[in-house]
Every structure is written in structure tokens, then in C-alpha cells.
């Protein structure tokens, strides 16, 4: 499998965790020390404010998932994921793993999560 070979090269260096989300969620996660700004213009987080356009979010998402090779995991809040759903569904890679997390002002809804949709279809669970 080609993936295994791809993954094996990760072992050497530890990977970063990128996050795209609203101000509070990002700040909360930054408290745990996941943020990285060693490249000043290229932080590993994107704060989505009211005036942030979908294009900016999509660009950041593509940047984290495809261009930056040191990202191992991309956290993205659900309401923002919904705005760039096509990009997320279009992303088929294994690393970085894209994880949808509930946004702070909405109760988590598994039905909107691309992954969970598939999982639940496979498990045959409906209407949870």
C-alpha cells in the first residue's frame, strides 16, 4: 500500500496540529500549546471571524491539508466545515487527518459530519 509508505516517513518528526475555528475555540486549543508561529506569516491556526470569507477558509484548509507537510491533524469546527463542505469531501488523504469538532455555539450534530455520515451508514444507525 502506498499510504503505509507515506505514513512511515512521518515517524522522524512530530507533526503539528492545525485548527480552523471561531475565536474562542481556537484560543482554547491554543492554551494547550498546539499553535505554531515559527513562520510568522504562516500560523497553524485560522481564526474565523464574522467577516472571514469562505474563500479564505477554503484556502487555509487546502494549505493545511495539502501544502504544509508538517501538519498531522486538522481540527475544524463544524459550522465552518459546513461552509467549505465540498473541500472537505474532496479531501481524500490520510495524513493529515481532518477532524470535525463541534463549534462552541452549536450542539454537535453527527448528521452534518462527513465522516460520521459514512460511519453511521456503515453501522446502519439512523436518526440518533
Amino acid at each position, binding site marked *: 500500500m502506498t499510504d503505509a509508505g507515506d505514513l512511515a516517513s512521518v515517524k522522524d518528526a512530530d507533526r503539528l496540529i492545525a485548527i480552523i475555528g*471561531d*475565536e474562542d475555540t481556537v484560543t482554547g486549543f491554543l492554551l494547550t500549546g498546539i499553535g505554531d*508561529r515559527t513562520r*510568522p506569516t504562516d500560523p497553524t491556526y485560522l481564526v474565523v*471571524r*464574522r467577516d472571514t470569507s469562505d474563500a479564505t477558509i477554503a484556502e487555509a484548509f487546502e494549505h493545511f491539508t495539502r501544502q504544509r507537510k508538517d501538519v498531522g491533524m486538522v481540527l475544524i469546527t463544524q459550522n465552518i466545515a459546513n461552509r467549505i463542505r465540498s473541500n472537505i469531501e474532496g479531501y481524500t488523504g490520510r495524513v493529515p487527518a481532518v477532524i470535525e469538532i463541534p463549534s*462552541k*455555539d*452549536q*450542539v454537535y450534530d453527527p448528521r452534518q459530519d462527513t465522516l460520521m455520515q459514512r460511519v453511521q451508514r456503515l453501522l446502519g444507525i439512523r436518526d440518533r
Partner: protein
Amino acid sequence: MDMLTFNADNGYLEAVVRGLKASLLRRQDYTNLAQCESPEDMRTILNSSDYGLWLQNEPAPLQTQALYDCLMNRLVYDFRSIRGQSYAPLSTFLDYVTYPYMIDNLVLLLMGVLRNRDLSELLDKCHPLGLFEGIATLTAIHSPEELYREILVDTPLAPYFAECVNVHDLTEMNVEIIRNLLYKAYLTDFYQLCVERIGGMTGSIMATLIAFEADRRVINITLNSLETSLRKDERMMLFPRVPGGLDDEIIQRLGRADDLQAVAMALDLSSTYRALFQRAAERGEYSLEDQFLEFEMKLLRESFDAQFHYGVFYAYFRMLEQEIRNLTWIAECITQKQFAHASRVVPIL
């Protein structure tokens, strides 16, 4: 004699502030707000208050951040209009009220400089009340020394810096330590302004408020540094000391405290804080911080009982800050569907 001369310059503003204070939300309003199902419901309730005007232009799904911005805009607007109409001693006093914001901004800028960030970007993040002159030239700053030479010396905070920080240490010192040192110097200076330069009723009332603020910081610094590598002598150095605050004995004990138990023992000597501490321990839901806020609100309310002094201005803005905190708390609780906690605010009036 405050009574006879105070109103000449400040009577109007004092009455305005009292009027504004009267329109702050009350316990009942908070109970109503806590019943809301969505931030939109909050808007309906708030529309009948002073905030109606501020919120009317917000797009329909009212977001917490938007709400916060509106509230903060109102605070800034209120402050600026009052500051704009004030005369000499009051205007100085009001400037002092904004120094905490300025300290926060400066620390933020300092942090940005230390990390080679683009300062003009940081400018947007500064609190509008803490802006100072020379901020426009900020983009040309590249090192902490430059920041000090070009900007800091012109700000009112320069003496504080000179007092507590060696310019060459700016790079090495922890910014949080700097922040606390600045705050300490600020409190001492503010105390001097109120008690020695303004004096009278203002002095006596502000002395209580500032002493409380200092005590709160002392206790907080102690509690928050218990499990960090902050040395005991450093901790002592950060304690703001003003007359009328905690006794020397308590301060010494807090400075030596190693754990929560020792803090509790030290505070046992002070009737006020012992009560707060115990109540915080008994009612797990309300933290010590909440107890402090509650006590502070009580002091602020009491300051409104006297007339012809500047304390009401300070008290009003502190109350407004508390109101913003409360409203954001309720809004957050509602958007996060934590309805049970929504009523857990510290009411102002």
C-alpha cells in the same frame, strides 16, 4: 467643601453617570435574560434597555462576539463622552481609570515586539480605551528598546516602567511579570492621586476601592502562583501595597504560603476575606473570583451612596464592565445550551 464646589465642574457629569448607573440591568433583568432560549430573545429583552440602540443594527442571528462588541462599544462611547466633558482633576482621574487597559495594550505590544510580529496588525487588537499617543509610529518599531524609547516614554505609564522594569531587562523578563509589576505601580500611583492630590470624599472612597483592588490582586497572585515556578521573593515583589489594604502580617504570610491551606490560614486574619474565602469554599458553584466580584459590586454600590466625589465614575465603569461580563456570560451559556448556568451571574444592583 466638596459639596459646594464639586458641582461647578462635575455636577452634571456626576448626575449623568448616576443616571447611567440607574439604567444598568438589575437582578430581575438577569433572571429574565437567563430564561432566554436564543440570543435573539436576549435582544428582545435588551431592546427595552439602553442597549436597544446599540444592538439594532446587528444582523439577525445575534452572535456572542457581536453582542460583546456592541457592549464594549457602548462602554467606550460612554467613557469617551464623559471624558470629553470633564475638567481638570476629573479628567486626570478618568485617564487613570483607563490605565489598566493601557497596561494590557502595552504588554500585548511588547509581546508582539519580542516575537517580531507585525505591530500594525496588533493595533487592531488593542483595547480602544487603552490607546495612547504615538501609536501611529508603531510600525517602525522592531525591538523592545525602541518600543521603550519611541513609545513608552511618551505614555503616562513611563514612570511605572522606570520604576519597576529595567529597559534592558525587557527582553528577558516574563511579560506577565511585567504586567503585574506595572499594575502594582499603577495602583500605588492611582492611590496617591486620589488620596493625596484629589483628597476629600473622593480620597476616602477611592482608598477603599483601590485597597480592595490591591488585596484582590495580592490574593490572586498568591493563589495563581502556588504551583508555578515563581519564586517567593518574586511573588512578594508583585504584591501591590496600598495603605488600608491587607495587614503587613497577612501579606508576609501570603508571600510565604505554599499551598491553599496556608493561604486560607493567612486570610483567616482578615475578617472580610475570611468570609469571602469561606463562602467560596462552601458554595462550590461560585468561585473565589465570583465572591470577589460580588464584594466589589457591593463596594461599588456603596460608593454611590455618597455624593460629590469621583468614585462614582470609577464605580460606574467597573459596573459596566461587570455588566458586559454578565451579558456575555448569559449569551455564551445560551448559545452553548448550558441553560442551567445562565443565571449564575454576579448582579450589579
